């Protein structure tokens, strides 16, 4: 994810020095992405809100940009004057004086360029820092529902690519855009002050160039997009066939796969040659246009000078101005597109910022002194989409310290019950009570602190094992962390690791086994010491023997707490005080294991089935 390319800062910032015949290539057509934003004006205004915070810096950047542009325009003018007024008439002192003046102009130009870039870099970085922080804070504040609907990759890309895009644009494009405009207007003014006819001739070449460019670009773009299409096809093929390489190998189908690849690769080769030949010709063409405008100015200038309409110095100045004049025009289109794509990026960031945050009744809600852990669901209705009910009129009661098991087929609504209790989602009707208090009157943070979660996907953060356990209670001492690990049966494997508690876990903890990670999350929950505990398929991704080991740890954890256990394997919940069988969002049966077996209903069938098959479902 390297968005920060050092070359960006330096590549296009040397306007001040480019004041002669320029030989750089024009932008390659078709490589500019055309991303259109939906509401560019509104987005710009919001970026402005961020920029506003650094008004002084912004002021300095704009002023220095204006000064640089003026100084840039002054250079060619002074050179022309030097030739006409001092070199041709042989004026030694004047020449020396002009030399000093010219150097002074260049020096000031360099100084202001430095100031401009110095300030602009912190301006843009600080702005995107604020944006990034806001986005991150927003991610923290958004309800779980939001994350369930979006992929991580998508959200990640907003925080990285899109923001980097904004940063680069602020850093260069905006400054360039401003200076391009200044120079455009300024060079026309300067040229007019020198010679009306020469100005007209110079300006005339511009629309010609623009027109030809547009024509050629239009023509090459279709080939370019065809090339992109074929490239996409090859990439898609590669993506799929390398992901499935293990299958290809087990079937011994390498040869066919190579043949198929060759076929589409050959297509890409042919189209690629054509597209590149065409679009690559753009550079020489632009170059020729510049050459021709150089010729026109030289020849016309020569003829005018011959007739004494202008001086030689003016020819020199015009050769420079024509370049300064055409360059911003060539760049404007490019910068405009960059700006557009940055605005589109910013828009995606703002789109997230505009999402409704989870409402936290931090100041409104009540905290309880002590939570015993009585949980009541009273005729709760809920659906993830308002017209698709997931829980229907669901009621349940858990006394303090009880172990409640939730059983039922996938999609029955077991996890939903947990989501509602933690207030990851809000109920549509009915009430949920903890110790007789409606949870909607409680402080949300306080509520969640009372609930410990152990999920199927045992999530650990990069950092040490100690830090990961301490996540449960940040203020915990090292002793307490180790004690929690001991209670969670995690102590044994941790102490066998070479660095023990200081072992660095890599991203998503892939250097631990699934079972070991689960033990860490249990230790984390032990340390948090919640009154209510939720174990949602905590052992579903481990084999049955590992499960036994983890269950032992969970038993310690559940002692003295109200716990909700969701499990596929019925053997794990036989000891529950109360088993709720959920199907289609409703409690269809409830009671103890023995009672439910006697009842001979849904649960009994499920149990018998698993008993004969082994308990995995």
């Amino acid at each position, binding site marked *: 994810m*390297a968005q920060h390319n*050092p070359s960006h800062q330096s590549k296009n910032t040397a306007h*001040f*020095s480019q004041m002669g*015949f320029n030989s*750089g*290539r024009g932008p390659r057509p078709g490589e500019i992405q055309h991303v259109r934003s939906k509401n560019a004006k509104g987005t710009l205004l919001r970026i402005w809100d961020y920029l506003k915070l650094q008004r002084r810096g912004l002021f300095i950047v704009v002023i220095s940009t204006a000064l640089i542009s003026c100084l840039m325009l002054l*250079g060619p003018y002074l050179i022309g004057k030097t030739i006409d007024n001092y*070199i*041709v008439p042989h004026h030694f002192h004047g*020449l020396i004086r002009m030399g000093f003046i*010219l*150097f002074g102009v*260049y020096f000031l130009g*360099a100084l202001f360029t*430095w100031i401009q*870039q*110095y300030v602009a870099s912190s301006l843009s970085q*600080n702005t*995107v*820092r604020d944006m990034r922080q806001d986005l*991150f804070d927003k*991610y923290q504040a958004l309800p*779980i529902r939001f*994350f369930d609907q979006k992929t991580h990759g998508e959200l990640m890309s907003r925080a*990285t690519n899109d923001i980097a895009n904004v940063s680069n644009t602020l*850093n260069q494009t905006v400054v360039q855009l401003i200076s391009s405009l200044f120079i455009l207007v300024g060079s026309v003014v300067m040229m007019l002050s020198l010679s009306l006819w020469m100005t007209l001739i110079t300006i005339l070449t511009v629309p010609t160039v623009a027109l030809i460019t547009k024509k050629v670009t239009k023509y090459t773009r279709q080939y370019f997009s065809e090339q992109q299409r074929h490239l996409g096809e*090859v990439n898609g093929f*590669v993506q*799929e066939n*390398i992901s499935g390489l293990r299958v290809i190998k*087990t079937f011994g*189908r390498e040869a066919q796969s190579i043949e198929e690849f060759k076929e589409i690769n050959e297509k890409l080769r042919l189209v690629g040659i054509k597209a590149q*030949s065409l679009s690559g*010709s753009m550079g020489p063409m632009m*170059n020729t246009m510049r050459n021709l405008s150089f010729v026109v100015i030289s*020849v016309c200038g*020569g003829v005018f000078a011959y007739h004494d309409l202008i001086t*030689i110095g003016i020819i020199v100045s015009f050769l420079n101005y024509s370049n300064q004049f055409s360059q911003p025009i060539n760049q404007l289109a490019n910068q405009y597109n960059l700006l557009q794509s940055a605005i589109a990026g910013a828009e995606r960031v703002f789109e997230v910022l505009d999402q409704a945050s989870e409402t936290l009744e931090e100041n409104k809600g009540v905290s309880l002194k002590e939570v015993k852990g009585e949980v009541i669901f009273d005729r709760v209705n809920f659906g993830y989409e308002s017209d698709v009910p997931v829980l229907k009129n669901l009621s349940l009661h858990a006394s303090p310290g009880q172990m409640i098991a939730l059983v039922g087929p996938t999609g029955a609504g077991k996890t939903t019950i947990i989501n509602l209790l*933690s207030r990851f989602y809000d109920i549509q009707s009915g009430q949920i009570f903890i110790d007789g208090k409606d949870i909607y009157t409680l402080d949300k943070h306080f509520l*969640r*602190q009372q609930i410990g*979660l152990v*999920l199927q996907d045992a999530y650990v953060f*990069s950092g040490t094992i100690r830090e990961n356990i301490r996540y449960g209670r*940040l203020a915990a001492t090292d002793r307490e962390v180790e004690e929690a690990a001991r209670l969670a049966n995690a102590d044994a*494997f941790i102490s*066998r690791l070479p660095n023990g508690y200081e072992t660095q876990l890599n991203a998503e903890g892939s250097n631990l*086994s*699934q*079972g070991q990670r689960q033990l860490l999350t249990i230790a*984390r929950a032990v340390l948090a010491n919640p009154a209510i505990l939720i174990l949602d398929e905590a052992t579903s991704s481990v*084999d*049955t*023997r*590992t499960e036994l*080991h983890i269950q032992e740890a969970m038993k310690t954890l559940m002692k003295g707490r109200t716990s909700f256990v969701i499990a596929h394997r019925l*053997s794990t919940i036989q000891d529950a005080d109360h088993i709720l069988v959920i199907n289609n969002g409703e409690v269809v049966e409830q009671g103890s294991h023995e009672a439910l077996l006697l009842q001979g209903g849904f649960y009994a069938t499920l149990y018998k089935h698993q008993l004969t098959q082994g*308990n*995995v479902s």
Partner: protein
Amino acid sequence: MWGLKAYIKPYWKFVMLGPLFMLFEVFFDLLQPRLAAYIVNSGVVERDLSLIERVGCLMVGVALLSLVMGVGCNLFASRASQNFGADIREVLYKKIQTFSFENLDTLKTGSLITRITNDVVQVQNLLQMALQGLVRAPSLLIGSVVMALLMNLRLGLILLGTLIVLVVVLFGLIRFSFPLFSNVQAKLDAVNTRIQENLAGIRVVKAFVRNDYEKKQFKQVNSDYTRVSIRAARFIALNSPIVSLIMNACLVAILLYGGNLVWMNTVQVGDLVAFINYVTQVLSSLLMVSGLLMNVSQANVSAKRIHQVLTTTPKIENRMAESSSPILGQHIKFNHVDFTYNGSDELQDKVLKDITFEAYRGETIAIIGSTGSGKSTLVQLIPRLYDVTSGSIQIDGNDIREYSLLELRHSIGMVLQDAFLFSGSIRDNLSFGRLNATQAEIEEAAKMAQAHDFITRLPDGYETKIGQKGVNLSGGQKQRLSIARTLLIKPPILILDDSTSALDLGTERRLRNALKEVMEENMTFLIAQRISSVMEAQKIIVLEEGSIVGIGTHEMLLETCEVYQDIYRSQYGKREAYYGSTQSFSSK
């Protein structure tokens, strides 16, 4: 990049002609200021109007020649780069097809995909650039200096001197900025990791109410990154003012000294005009070169990554030996097989230790054990997806390394744990292993795999498209299709690697019944988690940390094998199991 030069070779003509044309283009471009000087000197100063016209025509002609050369260069460069890219892509793809599972483990699928897509485009662009821009910019630079020196030695020397100073300064700046930017990258990684983790672990963050804590942590890394990148950017901000100041100082010097030379009549006014143009030309090509160098270093990384793939030796050697007889799958023998993933001999690295057993046609060999006990590795040794580290495996009396890989793999049908399907129709996927299968054969295999019913319920039946542009299948459906795909090739040896885990119990039972006949006629290896799935096998191998701790029938193992008893208890829910099993867990 040099590692890839062999792939440039076939296009050497283009590679030579492109730069040659570019040199001519540069030459013609460099003539322009010279001709303009001529207009001023001989046309304006010496008052010759017809000369201005003649030179003007000449300049247009030169401009057009430059166009021809430029376009020509591009044509050759495009041909060279696109062919080069396509060739590399093909060579890479072929190479990757020869990779063993072990190679795939070390190089990672995702990284291979980026290499063959992104990195190839990068080096392709680099070649294009090398033949055009990388020729143009330096030769403009050198050409300008040479032209300047030719016009007037003393003025030219000022330009040359300045250029040397500039190059030194630029190199210094780049050198100092390098560590700054690698630091920026490191800080940026920290920012990204933080975001990534908070997105993936958002439930945990919320459940523990750590939002404020995370915000604070993020603020820290965010400010760190901002601080470092501002510092780097400020340093880089020195770059362009310094360069332009030096260059413009040179301009002033030329103007002053040149003015004096004009007075001494050693230089004409028009030459001064041309000089000023050469100076600016030098500057802009210098900036171009530094921009291009950035791209080169990026593409170089890509070239290295491609080179790495091309020089990787496939871990499985195909001896291509003519085998004496076709593989019938009568008998298989594991003979003291050890396996480590990295080929080391260390005991703790061993994934499989001293595996020895035999099996015959008609037998089903079930393998059971904890996650990470080596079950999948064991069966993957049979079709040589990995090669044994020591010991040997024999099929029908011959070491498997004596068969050709293709023959071996065609005789072994393996259903992998991950039911990977390709995009395309269901029929395409089923006939993957046997392209000429008839509809009847396909249906037969699908029926056996319990897939026929759900396939016929799909909108287009067997022609239904699956994958990105088609219907989404459930995990269980995918598994059944991948089983059917393997059954279709009617292999004498069938391997099912935990490939029914997503099926519900009823479907799994029906599948097992349907497979009974196939299993009785062939040799079947079956990896499973559930005791109930392995119970009926003739041989059950119990694996524990890479060793066989029990082998026999269900009844035998229940009597004698402690680990098997453990597994049995863990699944059939006896209370004492809680205590018996804790010892064996928790080592990695």
